[in-house]
């Protein structure tokens, strides 16, 4: 599960990780109020206004039809109002959102942490994630703050410090020191960094996170270490034991069809193609998308109806796929193991009738338990549905349908 920057920072703060402080606001007026409070607390006229969307690249991103950047420094209360007005309710396009962008519903008004002082301000990077091959977590730190870690890894891998964490004993102090030294920290900043890394890792493990990306981690001019941004993902499978974190879900950030699908216990991912599909099993669902592509179409979605495909799930699946206006044909691909194909076929026919007229051609491929019986039910239903048994046969039928579009 993706969460917003301000939510990620809330988690970090709870674990004693210093953050760039801020207040989230849903209107320009609230943003102004927040700014006044922060300006008084920090004794500064500067604050930063940061759009809160589930995508990176906000600083360089731009509001659709305008010039406003997704993150901007405000030098006065009037500035705050103008920036917040430009952001809230408008669509921000970044390198990660795609050309359609994402609507900004909230901004984070945050303290300016780049103030001048005794030493130079320095931006760094710290990420925590799972190393699948080693089956343990790894902390990655880089002196190149503000840069994409993949780029740093490709061009200057020597600038990345990695520490793998033994799950039996957790992060050890020597490892936190290695990271702090590796980032070139000395004196007070070194001590702060050791504490920062230690608390950050504790937060990662205890919240069942699947990724932390703190970019930048800032050394301020008075040698404090703080998280200026926080990209946090939580392991969906662990949400059952984190009711507080589950509340961080923001459905306005998700595709409405994906929200509807998840409410129906369907695993659906919206894509941009013209052939919808409904499949049992995640691997076969991906493979079915691939077959659509090989047959000349483009997959409109990923949809795994799971092990219990029945009339109800099939109908829900149909309704969701059909709400996507790009869908010009649908391929249903079920390999009946425990699920019987005749039952699925009956489910397809019932769902079809319940929905009424389905305006696009449908190909139903049923294989496995009672496959022939399933095909007979489809063929005798009188509906405009083509049946197939072998996967290659289904692929050929998709090819013919796509060619006729």
């Amino acid at each position, binding site marked *: 599960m993706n969460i917003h920057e301000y939510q990620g920072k809330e988690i970090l703060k709870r674990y004693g990780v210093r953050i760039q402080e801020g207040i989230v606001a849903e209107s320009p007026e609230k943003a102004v109020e927040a700014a006044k409070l922060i300006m008084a607390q920090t004794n500064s006229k500067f604050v930063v206004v940061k759009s809160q969307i589930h995508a990176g690249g906000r600083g360089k991103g731009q509001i659709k039809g305008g010039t406003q950047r997704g993150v901007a420094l405000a030098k006065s209360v009037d500035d705050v109002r103008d920036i917040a007005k430009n952001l809230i309710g408008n669509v921000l396009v970044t390198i990660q959102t795609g050309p359609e962008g994402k609507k900004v519903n909230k901004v984070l008004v945050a303290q300016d942490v780049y103030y001048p002082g005794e030493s130079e301000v320095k931006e760094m990077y710290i990420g925590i994630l799972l190393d699948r091959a080693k089956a*343990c977590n790894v902390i990655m730190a880089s002196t190149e703050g503000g840069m994409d870690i993949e780029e740093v890894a490709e061009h200057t891998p020597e600038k990345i410090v990695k520490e793998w964490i033994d799950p039996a004993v957790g992060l050890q102090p020597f490892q936190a020191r290695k990271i702090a030294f590796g980032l070139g920290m000395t004196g007070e900043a070194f001590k702060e960094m050791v504490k920062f890394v230690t608390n950050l890792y504790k937060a990662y493990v205890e919240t069942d996170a699947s990724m932390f990306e703190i970019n930048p981690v800032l050394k301020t001019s008075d040698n404090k270490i703080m998280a200026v941004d926080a990209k946090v993902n939580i*392991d969906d499978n662990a949400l059952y034991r984190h009711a507080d974190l589950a509340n961080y879900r923001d459905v306005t950030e998700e595709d409405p069809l994906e929200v509807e699908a998840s409410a129906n216990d369907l695993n659906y991912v919206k894509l941009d193609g013209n052939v919808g599909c409904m499949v049992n099993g995640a*691997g076969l*669902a991906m*493979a079915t*998308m691939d077959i659509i592509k090989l047959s000349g179409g483009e997959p409109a979605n990923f949809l795994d109806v799971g092990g219990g495909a029945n009339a109800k799930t099939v109908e829900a699946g149909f309704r969701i796929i059909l709400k996507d206006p790009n869908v010009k044909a649908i391929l249903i691909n079920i*390999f009946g193991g425990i699920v019987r194909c005749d039952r699925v076929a009956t489910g397809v026919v019932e769902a079809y009738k319940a929905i009424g007229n389905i305006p696009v051609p449908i190909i139903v491929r049923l294989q*496995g338990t009672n496959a022939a019986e399933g095909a007979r039910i489809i063929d005798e239903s009188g509906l405009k549905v083509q049946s197939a048994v072998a996967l290659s046969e289904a692929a050929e039928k998709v090819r013919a349908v796509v060619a006729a579009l």
Partner: protein
Amino acid sequence: MSVLVNKDSKVIVQGFTGSEGSFHAQQMIEYGTNVVGGVTPGKGGQSHLDRPVFNTVREAVEKAGADTSIIFVPPAFAADAIMEATDAGIKVIICITEGIPTEDMVGVKAFMKGKAARLIGPNCPGVMTAGECKVGIMPAFIFQKGKVGIVSKSGTLTYEAVDQLTKAGLGQTTAIGIGGDPIIGTTTKEAVELLMNDPETEAIVMIGEIGGGMEAEAARWIKADGNRKPVVGFIAGQTAPKGRRMGHAGAIVGGADDTAAAKMAIMRECGIHVVESPAMIGDTMLKALGK
């Protein structure tokens, strides 16, 4: 010969009396699998499906001689179940459960290090040796005793491959569903190695998907091992977008190396017969075997 499970395997079911456990235990028994009992803590001493229920796995090992376990317990308790089976001396642990938190599996892997047990899964359809023993949830009737071994991250894609091999007249030795989670017990390479060393297995089908580096590791091992047997390979998710999880917790494209295209390229370089369409697995295997 076969790998992991055979007619002599003494199987227990963890989560025996639950609905999933009961249903699939019944199916396994009907196939002829030697299910010697089950474990449900607190129900020890009872009988279920004409088999004894034990409180602990240790008891099932001592009293029923269990050496293989299949786990159907809910995600919150599955990691514990795997570790209990490991501690009790079970040799092959097959975990069907989907949805185990990743951090739990990190702990399980660390716990199992240096111990004798082999874990298959989690989030997998199980293991089946055609004509001998089913320890899983796959539809048995599509199998036919034969000569091809299967390694797959996906359940229904395994069935697809099995079905095509049966219809091609080749049949199967053992099908190993290794699971679709980011952390699994037995890797693609380890499962392929088992089949490569099995005298009855003449060829291998290797099915992977986007995410992680297991298929590349297996492909390099196959080449280094001298391509002793023909391998037909498929990677699901050629059309999957970057950064989106496609159903399986582990099926997500992170960088350039874990895309389907990258994996397929490495597999081809390593002498694997890569198919772009999963509909071609059976035909390609026939050709690879010169038939």
